[in-house]
């Protein structure tokens, strides 16, 4: 199993009261799956994604990523796991402003400690792979929304991670561009990449082979579907 999650609980202290964002979630995710995580806001799907992405640590429960108990790791080791094994794609792209696309893509490699030449080579290869090899030196402001998201996907792929976590990757895009981005994810998945994405839109969720629905901090339904 790529991901094994057992009785994951996350409790936030909101002033006096405690909010139980996750109330015991268990799931297994295999290598090469394409999963859509859905649910209304406050259902715990974002908390679940943050825990899967090692951006946060659970209050209790266990999380194994590729066999390693990441729920026990300290901040610096978690940063390393995020750097090497997870690629993130965000709703608002989160590219560095006034920074060429290629430098945005190579950012994770900078923290991995790779020499400049190697970073540039890999970043260029990833930009080619998302179809933006000719825009390597454009700044984000000179790119369209869809192109920016492609740069962000290249950045997520550049460290050759085990999985890609995408948080509403089409939330800021028009329907036509959304379709293009989703096709890109499908293509990556067909090449073997594990993709987990959070979405509101059923049009987007259609691309996934498995849908996990959250409600009130628990998994409501976890079922396979025929992907589009």
């Amino acid at each position, binding site marked *: 199993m790529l991901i094994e999650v057992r009785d994951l609980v996350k409790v936030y202290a909101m002033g006096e009261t405690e909010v139980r964002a996750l109330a015991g979630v268990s799931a297994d995710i295999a290598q090469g799956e394409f999963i859509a995580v859905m649910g209304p806001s406050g259902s715990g799907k974002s908390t679940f994604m943050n825990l899967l992405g090692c*951006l946060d640590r659970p209050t209790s429960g266990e999380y194994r990523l590729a066999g390693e108990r990441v729920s026990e790791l300290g901040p610096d080791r978690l940063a390393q796991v995020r750097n090497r094994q997870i690629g993130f794609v965000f709703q608002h792209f*989160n590219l560095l402003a006034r920074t060429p696309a290629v430098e945005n893509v190579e950012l994770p490699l*900078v*923290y991995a400690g790779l020499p400049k030449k190697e970073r540039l080579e890999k970043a260029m290869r990833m930009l080619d792979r998302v179809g933006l090899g000719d825009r390597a030196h454009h700044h984000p402001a000179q790119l369209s929304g869809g192109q920016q998201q492609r740069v962000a996907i290249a950045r997520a792929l550049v460290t050759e991670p085990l999985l890609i976590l995408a948080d509403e990757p089409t939330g800021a895009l028009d329907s036509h561009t959304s379709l293009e981005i989703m096709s890109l994810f499908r293509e990556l998945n067909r090449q073997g990449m594990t993709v987990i994405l959070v979405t509101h839109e059923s049009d987007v969720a259609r691309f996934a082979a498995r849908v996990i629905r959250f409600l009130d901090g628990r998994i409501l339904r976890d079922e396979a579907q025929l992907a589009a």
Partner: protein
Amino acid sequence: MNLFGLFRVALRALAINKLRSALTMLGIVIGVGAVIVMIAVGAGAQKRVEEQIRALGSNLLLVMSGARTQGGVRLALGSGQTLSEDDAIAINREIPEALAAPALRGGAQVVWGNANWSTQIYGTTPEYLEAREWPIAAGRGFEPSEVSGAGKVCLIGATVARQLFGSTDPIDQVIRIKRVPFTVIGVLETKGQSLMGTDQDDVIIVPIATARGRVLGSATQAKQRAVSTIWVKAAEGYDTKLVEEQVRALLRQRHRLQPGTDDDFSLRNLQEVMSAQEASSRVLALLLAAVASVSLLVGGIGIMNIMLVSVTERTREIGLRMAVGARTRDILGQFLVEAVTLSLIGGLIGVALGIGTSLAIGSWLGWRVALSPDAIGLAVAFAFVIGVFFGFYPARKAARLNPVEALRFE
């Protein structure tokens, strides 16, 4: 990320808000500039005082005749005749740590061939040159027979030599001082300006007896052995204050002054006069130091302020960097390097400004300034320390951000 990479990232971040970055640096620029000017001016003043001490001769006391009262009007110091050559002889005899030289002073016109020049005539003993540490550049000093026998020989200062003789060798030439012929036996080394700014090389030295008998005349010196001043040098290693008290006590005893009455002479410790001058330049340096430290402090706070704003503005960027693998120390390093870059660039501009201002002060105000590489290094190091000190808190704030909240920050 290596230091060079961090530095490049910092420069790019600072270039986004150029005006803001420039204004933030201003405090450091002024502070570092002030430090450099302060040290240049202070060191310059110190150097000038040291040179003056060297020119005057160290450990010197100056005894002047007391004020003479003429029909109820008190005349200037040195106008009376309360000091005599015997006082100087007594000091040399009674106080072994002191070397005393009596002196008579007056102005005179001197003539050599077609050239003439108006200068100071000093009638004194060979001890004078010893006390003033004033070597002879060419020729020789007075022979004992010339001193006791009122020989018509003289030593001339460098200015007199230049004005009267130009390029001719003055040694053994005969000049006329108030029509009395004198043989030039030696030329003194250059001394430069005195504390009061007069040219010390514009002088002719003759044996005291000759001066009294031939040049300065008994008309001004009614009492036979009276002198206007006695120069006293305390031997090396002795406290000038102590020697000063001994000389005072001896003179009071010789002049039969009752306890409680005023001295009939004035005794000045030239060392103290110069220390006072040095102290005043030190006050100026202190004032600049105050300006510099306040400016550096304000500059540092400015950097901290802007870095805090910057951390808030770039919260999402920080979140993203954390998400893609930046560790706490990477973020800390990034913002610390940015703060240090600000303060170091400010520091370097300040160095340029400080050097420019120092040179301007030197050439426009005519002040002596001494730029030292040490001071410049110190100022830059100080700017660096300020960057680290005031940059640390904002950087730590950035590094401690929770990646989830940072990514969600609007």
